[in-house]
């Protein structure tokens, strides 16, 4: 936690994302009229330094997983730019794209569906090395054994098939696979949300240890604020495909500026049953991304909304304490 930057650090960031967007065509066909586009991600920008963990939080359906997949280029972005070390990889194809993926790996949410049930654990973990033709077969085996040790799996596990493991062990296999290529950045899409609470803590600690030992940067996608508080350096809050607030963890948790962030924080359970806290209960549901509200997307549910919110879309502006929020309420 030595580097706990409030805003993006001054040195050139590892990953820069600018105006990233993903629209899905809905309905429409040869004879039907195309329906409105679904704006899953709508203009997301952030940057990430080496060794830094940025947590992306928000309700389900707010587009946080889509951001992860766009960064991995598992989906094609509709707009925006992705840069790694200043190099634009938004349109990279073929070998250029493979070279990029070597530096950015992913840990998946579902430890059951993300491992090929027909392959042995060692094959799964060694496959990225094989894909890039790194090392001879024997060196690869050694490397895989190292990786197993690194994530806390016994060497015997290498010869087993995924169905022989528990959820937590499977997620460790997924982590070992993500580490195989020694990436600079790992996109972790809800890596512990499918696990039992006791196992969650172990896997989370493993991720923190690996980060500190290997200098990894994480883009950590989660809806669980307890998990986020444990691992984040910075936090970005998403609502309906946009980032509404981004800043250092302490600022976001202790002094959130955006009403949505405040509501999220108020909804998170607190360990002390006698703790007095302000309750902000949001009314209504998240609006459909097919037809987002005009102005600020949050205004129909916002307790403080006023006329300007219904007309003008707020942009991220700096707030005291060095973080950014997109709200008209206390704009400087």
């Amino acid at each position: 936690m030595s580097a706990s930057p409030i805003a993006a650090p001054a040195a050139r960031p590892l990953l820069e994302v600018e105006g990233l967007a993903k629209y899905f065509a809905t309905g429409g066909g040869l004879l039907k009229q195309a329906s409105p586009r679904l704006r899953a991600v709508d203009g997301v920008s952030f940057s990430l330094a080496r060794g830094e963990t940025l947590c992306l939080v928000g309700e389900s359906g707010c587009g946080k997983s889509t951001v992860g997949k766009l960064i991995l280029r598992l989906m094609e972005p509709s707009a925006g730019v992705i840069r790694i070390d200043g190099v634009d990889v938004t349109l990279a194809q073929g070998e250029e794209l493979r070279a990029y993926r070597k530096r950015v790996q992913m840990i998946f949410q579902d430890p059951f569906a993300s491992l090929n049930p027909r392959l042995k654990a060692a094959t799964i973990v060694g496959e990225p090395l094989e894909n890039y033709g790194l090392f001879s077969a024997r060196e690869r085996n050694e490397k895989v054994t190292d990786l197993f040790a690194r994530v806390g799996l016994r060497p015997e596990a290498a010869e087993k098939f995924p169905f022989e493991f528990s959820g937590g062990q499977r997620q460790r296999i997924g982590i070992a696979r993500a580490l195989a290529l020694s990436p600079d950045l790992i996109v972790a899409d809800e890596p512990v949300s499918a696990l039992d609470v006791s196992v969650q803590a172990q896997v989370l600690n493993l991720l923190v240890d690996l980060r500190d030992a290997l200098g990894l940067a994480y883009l950590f996608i989660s809806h669980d604020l307890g998990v986020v508080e444990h691992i984040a350096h910075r936090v970005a809050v998403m609502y309906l495909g946009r980032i509404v607030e981004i800043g250092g963890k302490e600022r976001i948790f202790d002094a959130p500026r955006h009403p949505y962030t405040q509501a999220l924080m108020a909804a998170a359970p607190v360990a002390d049953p006698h703790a007095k806290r302000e309750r902000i209960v949001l009314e209504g549901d998240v609006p459909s991304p097919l037809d987002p509200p005009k102005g600020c997307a949050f205004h129909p549910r916002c307790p403080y909304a006023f006329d300007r919110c219904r007309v003008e879309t707020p942009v991220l502006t700096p707030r005291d304490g060095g973080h950014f929020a997109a709200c008209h309420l206390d704009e400087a």
Partner: protein
Amino acid sequence: MTEASAFSARELAATAGTGPRRRRFIKRHASLVAGAVILAIFVALALAAPYLPGDPLTMTPARRLSPPGSGYFLGTDALGRDVLARTIHGARVSLLVGFLVAAASVAIGLALGLIAGSIRKADAPLMRLMDALMAIPAILLAIALVSLTRASVTTVVIAITIPEVPRVVRLVRSVVLGVREQPFVEAAIAGGARLPKIILRHILPSTIPPLIVQATYICASAILVEATLSFLGAGSPPEIPSWGNMIASSRLYLARAPWTIFCPGLALALVVLAVNLLGDGLRDRLDPRLARRM
């Protein structure tokens, strides 16, 4: 999929076991075992046919239309040929055509299905072509091909395979489209795997179990179509005994010598039943959703 692998591991243990375990396996998979046994008997007879006593082509006019038991186990036909020998030799054509058609349509259909499922640009044109092929009736195509070339097993196999291929392509494509969205395929892409490897290592294995089942159904229907073609005279040439042409040449003597038509007819029904039973048994074994219900 988890269940499938766990299941097969247990299954291996069961088949390797002795007495009671084997009995339990037979009980649970009655149709699989029955189909396999009947089919194995026919395959063995077909393979051994040239070495068995009794010649399917020798004509003994003096003993034409002899009833079963009179020196010939299943009697003779209108030309005095041994019905048992002809029925056994007829199995060769039927099984050969069934096997070749199943193998050819699975091989071609698998390749095209993988392409249609994984290469977006190829999908629509390929599938429309398949729709067109599917509209061709096997029997008409065979008659047309035979009249253009000449009657042979190859012609029959080609004619039956062409309309079967689209069914396999559709099956494979649907499996590919399902598996392609699985997180483990995304994980492989993220891990830098190239397209051929993703298809061969991560997608292809999922298509095998439904394909095996489909292959048995194709085999059964090919055997029937071959018999129909031979019956119509568009199948294997008359000098090769086949169940279809045996039934065709015997139908005039149905009242006088029913054995000449019952033997090939019963053999045909048994083989098709056996292949279908085998297919049903395999489907129950290989489809985890059905297996769980049992």
